[in-house]
């Protein structure tokens, strides 16, 4: 298998190592194209950043200016009944006030 590997390497070397036609592009051309692509990418990134910033700003502004609904009053607690003796509220007890009558003086005195 090793000999076959060596033979394959030799054959591939013959095919891949051919001179071929002269290169149709140069390092300067590739660099020029690369710089242009870099420029376009930077511009796209800047535009993208601005768009994101605008979206965030608008969202925050909308959230801040939204009308706040009045708070609903808290619901009263539920009344619970228990089996034990219940204390009568003070306002339900009746008190009797003693009344004194003064004797009116008579004319005989």
């Amino acid at each position, binding site marked *: 298998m090793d000999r076959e590997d060596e*033979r394959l390497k030799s*054959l591939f070397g013959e095919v*891949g*190592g051919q001179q*071929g036609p002269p290169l149709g*592009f*140069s390092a300067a051309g590739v660099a020029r*194209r*690369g710089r242009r*692509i870099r420029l376009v990418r930077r511009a796209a990134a800047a535009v993208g950043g601005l768009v994101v910033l605008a979206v965030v700003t608008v969202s925050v502004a909308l959230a801040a200016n939204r009308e706040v609904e009045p708070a609903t009053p808290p619901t009263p607690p539920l009344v619970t009944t228990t089996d034990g003796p219940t204390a009568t509220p003070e306002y339900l007890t009746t008190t009797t006030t003693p009344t004194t009558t003064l004797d009116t003086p008579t004319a005989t005195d």
Partner: protein
Amino acid sequence: MTTQDEDFSAYFAARAHALRGTAYLLCGDWHRAEDITQVAMTKLYLAWPRLRDHGMDAYARKVVVRTFLAENRRLWRRREHVTGEPPELSTVDGDAERRLLVEAALTAVPPRQRAVLVLRYWNDLSVEEAAEVLGCSPGTVKSQTARGIDALRRRLGPHRALLTEEGGDLWTGRTNG
């Protein structure tokens, strides 16, 4: 010209032809090989600042192979027309004939298997390195290599002895004799 451009120009001068050789072995067409190499070189230029002084060859090779495979997936780029038999080549010298036979046989090997063969036998990569380039497991590389060699052998037909040292010697003896 910036330092990056100078470094890139030096790298380009040293490696562009070898890279195009890889692309040519993959696609069997000089024009397409040039397109693929140009794409790879442009991507390499863009990635240059983060690649620094290492990994440029591996990166460029990866771009070439992946660009080739991506193009092959697009139906409209499939312009290889495999003929039934290897070409009849009686008017060229022995080396050129052998080269053309191998080229013709290689175009008949499925693209992914061809990529494995090129990485293993032209770029001289190990199974693990080839797996890294192709983004697959070493086991897949091994199986694809075996299938690729088998396809190459089948395609070479009566000339399959070219793949053995004895066959190469026989060929040389026949053409020189």
